[in-house]
């Protein structure tokens, strides 16, 4: 069936009303899972579908909302049995009419990472099973979704395992967001990009309350809009809803101006409501919306409209950064997250993410880093890699509409990258170079840009989603090149109507006072129409230039953003950092900057770094630990002291890597919160302390597969493993992990004894239990973990 022509065959498409409400009213009883009625009471369910079809529904939703493997676990029927029966009932009920049957799929019922523990790929498998089971349906509906990431998994499962049309609706709260914080605009941008056929809202609120959400969605998409509202709000006592059919229809009528084409009812609605809406629509015309906003990228919770220069942060990139490379090799994701957060604080609105490094698996790392950044940071991301398989994996696991960096004019690149951009609904950076290299002239670069845009449009990518990079060359090597870049940029902007992007900092290589050259070039480029400067947002003068430009070119209305950024920036009082504190005082009192300053001063006075570590830092930390044990100070103070020590260590590490390349690590330790457990704050506290005592921590995160722990220990030759678990239910994972460690040949001595020391901790553990499951040490708090590390590694 061609869904477009089905949609166009009528002014409006009617959906059905609630299934649950009718089941409840009928008084039929069932055990836990209402979908089992498909098999136990097929006639009853079919009669509901028939009632809706008679009332005027063009599409009825089969009774399959919760029919997934998680919710059906103990119900005695398989997903296939319930879904097949559900579709059959609906098909029989509407037999002989033009009414279509939808496979109706609600959320799985578990939260996805980062909030929960279910992975994207697991969610995909749940939906895939349902979609294959529902092969007899005419159309697939995803509804009542609150997590855009889960919905993306669902849509991909549908696209990759069927060719049916897709309707996707999400559920928003009064505050205009879903439970997981998704904005209507982000849903619209992302779902349209993924190629669904209609999008909208269902459940949670009545039609009146949904107006702001529906209007926002309509500003961000051309797709037909769906509404399936509740009959108002339920009375908490009687569970009766408070909007009756005639008023419901009236409220729906008020929403038609937002491009609403597909209409039904959710909780509390019945065939009466559907009849009433059909009546109301008799003399009404579909009013397609005018999409107001056309070039945006987003995460699930933040939209960045490209309507003037927007800053892309360049810092998540190992090129030329020793510490960053080391972080990648050590799998030190927190280091990368720190970079992400500090760039956003500096003023970046989009972050470029590049994790290419020969010593690591770039694809796995890209997915891991994207997920981790999206767990703590709302800024949209730009996925940066030269490898199509890395881009593919990254695009798949990104929540929102990202930018791909990049495609270029080479045939291979166009063929490999553009289809990915189309499939996942992203924007893309187009580099103006090809097999012949970078053209010297503006003319040459413009021609390549034109070709990229044509090829993108040929496979259905809008030119609004192609951001052309006319390439910055180093002015100290080719002085005339700068003008060619700017000329090309101007032509791309005015003649092709594309947005433009430039890496700015390249311009000044080899010159003194690079910042001045960079800033001046940035300003010139913005005047020629640069939309997306890629810069280091933590350099205040660069970020400031963009902000000031937005004021002066009348983009930042009433200078609101500018004032917000600078209003409370009273110049920081100049702290006399070489103050009179010594390291002991600084560490004991948790005075970070003083600690760093005094350490630097000691080094400048040529104090032996190892003397600072062993005779000043460690004794100070020991005193802190002792006072913590005696209840003289409490946990936050212990951590602040440890963090101060870290600052001091960092100064020393920096000094050593400059002078001798010598490492000060006292040994490597793996830390992980065991499989199934997501409470990881305790493990993270241990990590901070171990870090600060000079150990190198390989942090594998939370909900960690035992196999990954063992493999990491083997690969990196690590002799000490710390495991945490908060709940009694997850202690068994801890036991399994220890067993696996003990069983691994490479981690055994020739006599079969274990080379690995395992220490464990967590609220529900006791020493006895720890010994029983085979751990070497039980640590009741972070301080004891450090003591244990000292004992084992020295």
């Amino acid at each position, binding site marked *: 069936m061609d869904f477009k022509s089905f949609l166009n065959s009528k002014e409006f498409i009617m959906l059905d009303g609630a299934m649950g409400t009718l089941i409840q009213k009928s008084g039929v009883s069932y055990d836990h899972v209402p979908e089992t009625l498909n098999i136990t009471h097929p006639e009853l369910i079919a009669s509901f579908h028939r009632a809706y079809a008679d009332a005027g529904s063009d599409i009825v939703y089969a009774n399959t909302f919760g029919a997934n493997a998680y919710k059906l676990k103990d119900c005695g029927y398989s997903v296939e049995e319930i879904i097949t029966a559900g579709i059959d009932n609906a098909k029989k009920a509407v037999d002989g009419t033009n009414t279509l049957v939808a496979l109706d799929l609600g959320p799985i019922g578990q939260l996805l990472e980062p909030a929960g523990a279910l992975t994207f790929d697991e969610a995909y498998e749940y939906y895939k099973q349902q979609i294959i089971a529902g092969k007899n349906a005419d159309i697939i509906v995803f509804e009542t979704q609150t997590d855009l990431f889960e919905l993306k998994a669902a849509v991909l499962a549908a696209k990759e395992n069927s060719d049916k049309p897709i309707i996707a609706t999400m559920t928003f709260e009064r505050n205009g967001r879903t439970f997981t914080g998704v904005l209507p605009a982000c849903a619209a941008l992302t779902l349209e990009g993924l190629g669904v056929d209609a999008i909208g809202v269902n459940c949670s609120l009545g039609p009146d309350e949904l107006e702001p959400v529906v209007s926002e969605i309509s500003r961000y998409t051309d797709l037909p809009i769906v509404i399936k509202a509740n009959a108002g709000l339920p009375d908490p006592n009687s569970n009766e809803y408070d909007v009756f059919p005639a008023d419901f229809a009236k409220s729906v009528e008020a929403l038609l101006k937002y491009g609403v084409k597909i209409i039904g009812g959710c909780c509390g609605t019945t065939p009466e409501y559907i009849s009433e809406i059909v009546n109301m629509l008799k003399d009404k015309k579909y009013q397609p919306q005018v999409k107001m906003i056309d070039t945006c990228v987003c995460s699930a919770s933040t939209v960045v409209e490209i309507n003037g220069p927007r800053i892309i942060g360049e810092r998540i990139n190992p090129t030329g950064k020793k510490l960053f490379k080391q972080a990648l090799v050590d799998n030190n994701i927190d280091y990368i997250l720190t970079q992400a957060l500090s760039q956003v604080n500096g003023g970046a609105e989009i972050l470029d993410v590049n994790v290419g490094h020969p010593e690591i698996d770039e694809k796995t790392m890209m997915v891991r880093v994207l997920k981790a950044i999206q767990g703590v940071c709302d800024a949209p991301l730009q996925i940066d890699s030269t490898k199509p398989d890395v881009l593919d994996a990254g695009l798949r696991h990104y929540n929102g509409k990202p930018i791909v960096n990049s495609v270029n004019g080479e045939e291979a690149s166009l063929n490999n990258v553009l289809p990915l951009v189309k499939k996942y609904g992203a924007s893309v950076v187009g580099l103006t170079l090809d097999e012949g290299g970078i053209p010297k002239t503006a003319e040459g670069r413009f021609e390549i840009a034109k070709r990229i845009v044509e090829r993108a449009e040929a496979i259905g990518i809008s030119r609004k989603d192609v951001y052309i990079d006319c390439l910055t060359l180093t002015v100290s090597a080719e002085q005339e090149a700068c003008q060619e870049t700017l000329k090309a940029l101007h032509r791309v902007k005015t003649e092709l109507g594309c947005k433009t992007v430039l890496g700015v900092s390249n311009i000044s290589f080899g010159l003194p006072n690079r910042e001045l050259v960079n800033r001046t070039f940035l300003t010139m480029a913005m005047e020629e129409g640069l939309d997306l400067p890629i810069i280091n947002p933590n350099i205040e003068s660069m970020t400031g230039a963009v902000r000031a430009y937005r004021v002066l070119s009348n983009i930042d209305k009433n200078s609101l953003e500018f004032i917000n950024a600078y209003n409370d920036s009273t110049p920081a009082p100049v702290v006399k950092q070489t103050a009179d504190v010594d390291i002991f005082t600084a560490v004991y009192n948790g005075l970070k900057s003083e600690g760093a300053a005094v350490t630097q001063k000691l080094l400048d006075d040529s104090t032996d770094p190892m003397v600072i570590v062993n005779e000043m830092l460690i004794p100070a930390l020991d005193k802190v630990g002792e006072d913590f044990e005696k*209840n003289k100070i409490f946990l936050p103070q212990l951590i602040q002291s440890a963090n101060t020590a870290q600052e001091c260590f960092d100064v020393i590490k920096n000094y050593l890597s400059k002078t001798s390349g010598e490492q000060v690590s006292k040994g490597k330790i793996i830390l992980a919160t065991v499989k199934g457990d997501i*409470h990881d704050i305790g493990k993270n506290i241990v990590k901070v302390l171990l870090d600060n005592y000079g150990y190198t921590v390989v942090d594998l995160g939370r909900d960690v597969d035992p196999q990954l722990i063992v493999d990491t220990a083997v690969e990196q030759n690590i002799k000490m493993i710390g495991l945490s678990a908060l709940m009694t239910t997850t202690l068994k994972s801890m036991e399994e992990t220890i067993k696996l460690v003990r069983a691994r040949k490479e981690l055994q001595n020739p006599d079969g004894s274990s080379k690995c020391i395992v220490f464990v901790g967590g609220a529900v553990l006791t020493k006895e239990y720890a010994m029983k499951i085979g751990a070497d040490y039980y640590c009741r708090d972070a301080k004891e973990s450090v003591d244990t590390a000292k004992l084992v590694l020295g």
Partner: protein
Amino acid sequence: MIKLDKLNRREAVRYLGGAGIQLNYRMDRLMDECEKIVLSTAEPKFLYKEFDLPFDEIIKGKDIEGHLDGCEKAVIMCATLGNNIDKMIRINQISDMARAVVLDSFSSVAVEQVCCKVDELLAEKYQGYYMTFRFSPGYGDYPINMQMDYLRLLDAPRKIGLTTNDNFLLIPTKSVTAVLGLSKNPIERKKRGCAVCNMRDKCKFRRNGEHCGF
């Protein structure tokens, strides 16, 4: 709708193992800041549902039977501070761990305060009844996996976005499920106490000769 306007600082300090410690100025400031952040980030939501005898759907094991002994009604409830709190604590764990543990502790205090408000609300609604304390899955021999049944009975995933994972951990993490018994006749007002507590052998409060307060 429940709104919190103040958090119990003494409790927060106690959770952090600081009972009896004199906070210095910097710690006081940190506590002030964190209290404000938690108050502005928390989105308290709750649900409850009433059951009449014989409570078949929620009875499992001896301890819950004892708890509801003599009660004609039982009210199951759940409460959560929402996803934003978890995310905010996650962010702070990266930028400032000391702050993160204080935020975590205030959040635990906050969800307990939300539960107390639900208690008050129920006490008002069920005037004329005597009420037991809140008894949660995981107490005594009452299995933790009952959390899943509670959430299903309350329709919590759909109504307030509260779910569990395969190991019955609540997500968002700052959340509670519990049951209260109601009786027209006076109920012996038991303290929750250490006797029914699973943590009694490993509790850090007991170790220091204190009590968690429940």
